[in-house]
């Protein structure tokens, strides 16, 4: 069976995967409630539905971040070697990338959870 887990790539951009997921999640949540609260009267949707949908969106975002963290962990050789990863070799550079990406995935995970907290506690478009 072909694995669904992406193969390792040589790129600087992978570093930004998890923060980008955070950004998409953040903008998505903000835009969704902004549009909903402005157009609630013309939409046949309850605020509950919006919250649930965004809750699902949050779970997807967190899952992508976990996947990115797994890939980073793999790039970091599953943590077999300790930082600082300052060796002047391709391996040293790859380990550094993996470790930094893993750290950023952690931060992004927490930031997505933070952004989801209002969905738990706020139940209407109160101004």
């Amino acid at each position, binding site marked *: 069976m072909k694995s669904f887990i992406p193969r390792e790539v040589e790129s*600087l951009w992978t570093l930004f995967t998890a923060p980008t997921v*955070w950004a998409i999640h*953040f903008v998505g949540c903000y835009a969704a409630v902004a549009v909903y609260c402005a*157009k609630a009267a013309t939409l046949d949707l309850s605020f509950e539905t919006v919250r649930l949908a965004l809750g699902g969106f949050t779970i997807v975002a967190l899952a992508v971040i976990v996947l990115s963290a797994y890939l980073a962990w793999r790039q970091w050789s599953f943590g077999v070697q300790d930082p600082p990863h300052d060796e002047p070799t391709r391996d040293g550079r790859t380990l550094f990338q993996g470790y930094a990406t893993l750290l*950023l995935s952690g931060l992004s995970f927490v930031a997505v959870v933070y*952004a989801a907290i*209002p969905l738990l506690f*706020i139940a209407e*478009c109160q*101004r």
Partner: protein
Amino acid sequence: MVELGNFSPEERAAQEERLRKVWKTPGGWRYWTSVNNSEIGLWYGVTAFAFMLFAGALALLMRAQLATPNNDLVSAELYNQAFTLHGTVMMFLFAVPIFEAVAIFLLPSMLGARELPFPRLSAFGFWSFLLGGIFVCGSIFFNAAPNAGWFMYPPLATDKEYAGIGADIWLLGLSFIEVASIAAAVEIIVGIMKCRAPGMRINMMPMFAWYLLIVAGMILFAFPPLIAGDILFEMERMFDWPFFDVTRGGDPLLWQHLFWIFGHPEVYIIFLPAIALMAMIVPTFSQRPIVGYSWIVLAAVGTGFLSFGLWVHHMFTTGLPQISLAFFSAASEAVAIPTGVQIFVFIATMLAGRVIFSLPMLFGAGGLAIFIIGGLTGVMVALAPFDWQAHDTYFIVAHLHYVLIGGMFFPIVAGIYYYFPFVTGKKLSDAWGKVAFWLMFVGFNVAFFPMHFSGLRGMPRRVFTYPEHFGWDLFNLLSTIGAFIFAAGVLTFVIDIFRPKPEPETRNLNPWNAGTLEWTNDPSEDWGMRSVPIITSRYPLWEQENLQADIEAGRYYLPDAKSGKRETLVTSVLDAEPIQCLRVGGVSYVPMISALALGGVFIALTYHWWIPTILCAVITFIAILWWLWTGTAQIPETEEVDVGLGKTLPVYVSGPASVGWWAMFITMVGDGTAFASLIFGYFFYWTVHDDFTAGATGPGAFWPMVALVLFVTAWLLTIAARALNEKGPAGCRIALGAGILVTIAACLAGLAGPYVHGMDPTSNVYPATVWVIALWTVVHGAVGIVMQAYSLARSFAGRMTAEYDQDIRNVTLYWHFMAFTAVVTFAVLGLFPMVSA
């Protein structure tokens, strides 16, 4: 392992002679045509510092006015101009440019490059900044300065009765300076990604470079929304297009969104480079590598991203739904995590090393202490309910000055103490420095700590006087006394910089025993690196034996300048393997002329002098074309050159491997962000109205769809031109010629929709929005035509061939963005009204 070069003393002397000649800074008045990073960086820095002193003087004027209740030292109008200009100058003319200055000055040396890839672009940025800055600052002497606060909120700032020419000066002067900032961002990103010394892999980069890379990326996404906002604002002021006028469907809140999408990341754009300086200083004075290099990268990248999720915390009191506020409150708390990480990294480095207490450390530590207090009040005001109480009071004034002066000003001063020997070969005085520090530290706290209390007691910001017996008198008097003590500290520092200093007895290039590469440079030579070393460590001066001597003996890459041209190495992004010997622009008038002419456009526009505007625009256009024609994508006399150590590298590279392609890509990302902001505006107006067209007819679907198809056709023709060029000039020329004709038709079709349907942009915000988006795309189409015509001319002139095809490749890249812009524009304008109906 590569065998290093070995030259006899005579050979070395001859090499040095050639290098000196190539990199020589011209003398006399031609000095000002220099484009070398060390000159531009220095001018930039000194100019920004001078603007800071000017804005500081305005602050003292305000504090003098507020010392006692019911004071009448200055009028309300002058006070309004003073605080508006104080904020504007500090943010736009000091805080951002000073870091661009430091980056332009330091980066090549830190990265082991001779020069950044686009020295003339840096020069252009500097001259734009200087002219724009003088224009904005000078206005107060004619009682014409902006007076509506540094954020220019409409409807106050769109009211021509109240905010006269000052608002236009703000909008146009600063738009001009934003161009300079984006130019600097392009230079910095390409420089860091492509111009590092061989072997300096991304896990070897100096911390400063990591921070600057992130900051330059942030500029690309933060400044364009403000440019988009400026366009809307100026269209309202100049032509009465009602973007912010509620009576005709506009909404002032859109300006607040666009301003703060810029304004909040801006705070971190200012803060991160200052922290980057600390990340260079702390390891040096702890005499050990930084603890947690990867954690610093986490902090820089994390802060860079999260800072874009904070803008609404400036708008907590504007009546947005509370759940929206809560998202931004959450992000505002989350950003404390990476910010805290970097401070803990510094503390850990100091604990793990042996700390040498010196002036840079004193200023750094003092700054951090102040910043932490500002950070803690930041956590308080990030909570919406607390902010509802504190908003627009002196509590906020205290908070922002603790953050900016602690997080930015003190570290900059620390950086100046640290790098002064790098610039001049001499150290600043310890004794003067200590006096300056204590005056500044004590003065700052006496000035700003009491503002927390006057704020909590309800004193609003931006009032030119206040009645007695409100319990504010004592706090204000203290603040004024503190401000003058602080200013005395700054003055002491300035005198120390300019007082004559004796020549040092022994030549010591690295007086602090630092480990990073920039300290190998000799400030008395213009060439930067004598030879470009191979890097195998994060702290090469500590860990690579004989590095200094080998560099100076020319034993590494590019020890010579036989071609008589300014050359630097281009390396690969991840592993810094040498891939090109890049020839960079030398001394030239053209950046200065282009910048001054472009400045003329903005200044003439301010006063609605249409003929000078057009004249200056034509000069700018010709100057830039001349600059490109004579200075870029030059066909070299030889394909490959010997760069030393037995390596030959190509001189001419095109496509994604070239620096020019990257510059185009980065510029267009910024341009795309501005476009996205305009589209955001379109949908913003859709959300605030039940019927956003207000019953007006739209552009219809026909003409927008015609324009869309024509733009896509022109894009395909451009791609075809690039492909055909590889086979010979004939097909390429036909495709380009056809592309020009189709693009002209596409532009006309783009305007036909709103024109044929008689949309009057002054009647309502809907037609105004349609017009502004259509115009944006058509103007880009016009630029696309110029580019196609330019490539055509280059082909006919024999300057673009199948082998040397940078021009057409970069133009094609532009057209990818152009096609995207056109598709989004005409799909939204033509189809969305039908969908939403």
